[in-house]
Each structure stands twice: as structure tokens, then as C-alpha cells.
């Protein structure tokens, strides 16, 4: 029995240390200086909400496709104030899964009050976290979510699966983007413009930012892909980096900012 409790004891030891440090910090900022932001991402194709029911969509080049799976991580969210200072939201890893409607809405808490004019986030998972001890990978990062490569340790950052219906015969559309090693690192940051609006965080209100994520932009960005010749992408490659750069550049757009 004694040895079984060893990891627990170790955790307590670490935790106790953490308590001491966080305890010190808490004394110095006892003012209610934080608020929260409600965050929502709507997965769309152009102006239509994305459905996984076989609906055929039209890409920007006229080709048609259906989607059966569309999910991706958002992490390392940063908020920028008009004076250029940035607040990095700690330890926030969200898996947006079109098949799970609740997954696209979440609340960022303990945000320092202020007026924010910019937002950015990694579409994926930072390399330190994705390489870390699997026993610490809980919640969205759990390898059981099938957003994980068993053959090359790390998360799949974005997964799109479906069918290209404008080809004869139809063609499977398989796009798994991941990888954190040069030269094919797919860790990219999206920074959709707030279009001049300001996200005002106060202790007394819950502002909301609503983004749209347009599937078409995976194939239409700095690199133009034809779906008919899009390669099956299931490991880090030049093509997967191009897709990542495409979705970093243009997939996300800010639809609405509500002060509430």
C-alpha cells in the first residue's frame, strides 16, 4: 500500500509548493480586477452553418464537397489592448468539434479588466503541451478524443473529413493537420480582426465575441488547392503546412462583439 500512495504524495508535495507560491501572489492583488469573456465559434461554409448530414457545399472554385468531421483545437489565446500590451490566457485548450454543439462555446475567466482591441490564438496545441506527459493530458487534450497521433506523439490540430462530390467517382477528403517539427511545423496562429471594435472586460459584465470559421478557407488562402487533386493529408508534409497557413490566414473572422 505504501508504494501505491507514492505518486499521490508526490502530487501533494508539488501542490503544497504551488499553494505557497500562489498564496504569495494572491495577497498582492486582492482588488476585483478581473472579468470574463464569452467566446463562440460558428463553423460555417460561406454564409451557411456547417452541417455533417451530407449537405453538399460549394468551394470558392466551384467544386462541391460534403463534410462528415470537422474539429480543431484553439489554444494559447492572447488578448491585446490598444496600448499594445498583451494578456495571455493561461492553460486554455479547447477542442471545437462540429459534432458536439456545446464545444464551440466557452467562457474565458480571470481576464484582467480593460479594453481589448485584438485577439489571437493557436489553431492547434503548442509543442510543449502536445509532447508532454500523456498522464497529464485530460479533458480536450485527452488522446481518447481521437485527435491524437499514436505513431508520432502529438495532437492532430485540425481534422476535416468528407467527400469531394464534384469528381467522378467521388473522392474521399481526408485532411489531418498536425506536427510541431521543422520543416513541417503546423503550429499556426490566427489573429482575426475585431474590425475596429473593442472588447470591454469589466467585473460587472460578460462581453461576448462570436467568430465564424469558414471551412472553404482551408483550400483557398495563400495556397489555392483544387479539391479534385487535394492530397490525402495524414502526416506532416509541405501540403499540411500550406493548409495550416491557409486556415491561419483566413478561416476565422469576427462576426459580432456584444458588450452585454
Amino acid at each position, binding site marked *: 500500500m505504501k*508504494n501505491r500512495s*507514492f*505518486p499521490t504524495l508526490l502530487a*501533494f508535495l508539488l*501542490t503544497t509548493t504551488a499553494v505557497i507560491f500562489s498564496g504569495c501572489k494572491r495577497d498582492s492583488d486582492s482588488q476585483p480586477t478581473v472579468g470574463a469573456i464569452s467566446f463562440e465559434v460558428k463553423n460555417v461554409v460561406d454564409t451557411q452553418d456547417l452541417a455533417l448530414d451530407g449537405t453538399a457545399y460549394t468551394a470558392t472554385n466551384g467544386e462541391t464537397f460534403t463534410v462528415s468531421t470537422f474539429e480543431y483545437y484553439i489554444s494559447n489565446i492572447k488578448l491585446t489592448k490598444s496600448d499594445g500590451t498583451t494578456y495571455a490566457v493561461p492553460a486554455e485548450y479547447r477542442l471545437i468539434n462540429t459534432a458536439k454543439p456545446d464545444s464551440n462555446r466557452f467562457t474565458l475567466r480571470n481576464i484582467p479588466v480593460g479594453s481589448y482591441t485584438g485577439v489571437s490564438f493557436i489553431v492547434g496545441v503548442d509543442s510543449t503541451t502536445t509532447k508532454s506527459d500523456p498522464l497529464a493530458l*485530460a479533458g480536450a487534450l485527452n488522446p*481518447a478524443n481521437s485527435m491524437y497521433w499514436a505513431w*508520432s*506523439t502529438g495532437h492532430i490540430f485540425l481534422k476535416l473529413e468528407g467527400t469531394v462530390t464534384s469528381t467522378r467517382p467521388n473522392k474521399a477528403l481526408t485532411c489531418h493537420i498536425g506536427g510541431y517539427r521543422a*520543416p513541417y511545423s503546423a503550429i499556426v496562429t490566427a489573429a482575426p480582426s475585431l474590425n475596429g471594435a473593442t472588447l470591454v472586460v469589466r467585473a460587472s459584465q460578460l462581453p461576448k465575441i462570436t467568430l465564424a470559421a469558414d471551412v472553404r478557407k482551408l483550400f483557398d488562402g495563400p495556397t489555392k488547392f483544387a479539391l479534385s487533386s487535394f492530397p490525402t493529408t495524414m502526416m506532416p508534409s509541405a501540403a499540411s503546412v500550406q493548409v495550416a497557413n491557409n486556415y491561419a490566414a483566413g478561416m476565422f473572422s469576427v462576426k459580432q462583439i456584444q458588450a452585454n
Partner: protein
Amino acid sequence: MLLMLLPAGLRRWLAHWRPAALLALGAAVVGSCATQPDALRAVPGTGQPANFPVMVYGLAKNPPDAAAFALGRRLFYDSQLSSDGRVSCGSCHQAAAAFAHPGHRFSPGVAGRLATRHAPALQNLRWRQGFLADGGVLSLELQTLAPLTSPDEMNTPLATALAKLNADPEYRRLFAAVYGPGKIDTPQFLRALAQFTAALTSANSRYDKYVRHEADGALTAPELRGRALFVAKCSGCHATDLFTDESFRNNGLDRTFAHDSGRAHITSRATDRGRFKVPSLRNVAHTAPYMHDGRFATLAQVLAHYAHGVQPSATLDPLLRQPSGRLGIPLSGAQQAELLAFLQTLTDDAFLTDPRLAPPAGPAFAKLAPLTAAARN
């Protein structure tokens, strides 16, 4: 962040009793290292052999425990974890072959589909840096996921495996006994399997006893000549008493690597094409066939490859280019025979026949027994 995982009450308690808790915990940690509880002694392979480097996957990462080990052993041999219910870890990793798959270049997975590489021996995994022939997997615990989820091997998504375990009252009971009540989750599953795979320590061959000056550790004159040859010609890669330096090297199997680029599969670097993890040579007389693709059926073929079969390519390991420009390792027929004699001394019979590592008893595992028996013949 770790703090947030604890219930609020416990956090408050810890905050209040901070100094006392630190002292008590410190004493407990020291105490558990100094005394070896019975539970730990009952788990094989927990010691640090005197002639081995320091463990990479130390005991503290997943403290050996008899009940957790038994659970890991059961999981390792349970074919219900495969999509067709016919393939377990133990199907392709058999104890009598140092957990390699004798007689199979590529092991059949579910529905008879073949794996893309030879099933390697599993031994001394506590000392490994990275897993798979290309080093793609970074930890022993994560290694479980590769064969479990590969469509050509066990073909079971992790979530499906967890659902199967959670639907099985016996597994619920066994996991609860080790990890406490609640659903069986990813960390529990990975930890339990690693209890077994980490226990596969082979450190009691005649060679080990020789270097540790233990009883029954005599080597014959040809074996000693073979050892001297080995040190001179092979230990550049097969280093330390683990017989691997854990590096990735191109040992000249082919001129091009279109089918399997090895380390480059993970790193995407041209300089890594054709490089594969240097395997340990422990129990090597029992782990045939050899190489990542099992192309050599005998050790004699392996030595012949190094003597006169090495193929040139841009990434060929420098140790296989002689100053004269000749490729490979110069080895006369007599030298090859002495090397073979030495390699036989790396066989650890106690490991190959350890009943604690064999399939557990019971009807669910009965069909594995004939396979294991056949492999021993």
C-alpha cells in the same frame, strides 16, 4: 494548475497545514524509498541492474505495484482490446522470444492485415529513449496507443478500448482496486499497461553474471574472443550493457528507402532517410527474424550483411565506411563464428521463461498458451 484538480476543501486543508504537510510528505517519500514494500518486490524487473545505465522511466513515474502489474499483464494478453477480438499485445510479443514474434517478418493484426514493420522485442523498456524503429513515440505509456489504434494491428480507438473496459464488471473491479472508484480513464489504462511493459527487465544472462562477477558467470575462450571482437567492431552502436546507444542509424540495408524512410518518417529530414533505432541485442538468439522489416532469418545472415552486404547511400552510417572506402565491417568467417558464440551469452533464460510474464491463467487467455508453447520449441 495542479492545484485546481484538487477539491476546494483539500486545497484549504493543504494551505492551512502547509509546513507540517511538507515535512510529513518528505518523510514519507524518503521512507518509501528506503524500505521495499512487499507489493514492489512482487513485481518483476523493478531493480536497477548494477551494469545498466540509470533508468529513463524511473520507478517513481509509475510506482510498481503488485495489483497494478497484474492488471497490466491481463490487459497485455487480452485480445478483447482488438477490433476483431483475436489479437492481443501478447499475440505478436511472445515471452519466449523476448516478446518479439518468432517466425514472422510482419505480424498479422486484425483480419489478418499485416503490420508494416517487424514486431520488435520488448525488454528493458525502462531504459529506452523514444519508441518504435523511427522514434516517433516519446514515452513508454504512449507506446501502448500505437499498436492499439493502428488499423493493421489491433485497430481499436482509445475511446473504444476504454468503453470496452468500462463495460466489463471485472475490469471495473480491478481498476477500482488499484486507482479508486470511478470510470476507467486514459491515464489509468496507460499506467496499468506500462506496469507490465516496464517490468520486462532482462539482466540475468550469462554475460551479465560475467560482468558482475556473479556465480555461473563464466565465459568460454571463444565467447571471450567474441566479446573482444564485439567491443572492437560492434559497440560503436550497440553500446553499454543495454547493447544500444539509442541512436538512429542507417546500417546499409538498402540504397533507397522509398518503402520505409525510418527516422525521416518522423522528422521529414532527408538526412534521416534510412535511419532506424539501433536495437538492443539482448536475447538476440531468440528474437529472429532481424531488422525493422525482419528480412534476415538468422544471426549468421545478419553478420554476413555487415561483413559484405552493406549498401551505399547518402545517409549510410560513417561507422560502416572503412578508411579504405570499403563498406561494412571486416569480419572473417572465424570472427563471425566467435561473435555468434558471444551473442549466445546474451540469452537470459530466467527472463524468457519467467512465469510472472506469461499469459495469466483463465479461460479468456487459454488460447494464447499454445502459441507461447510453440514459440519455445
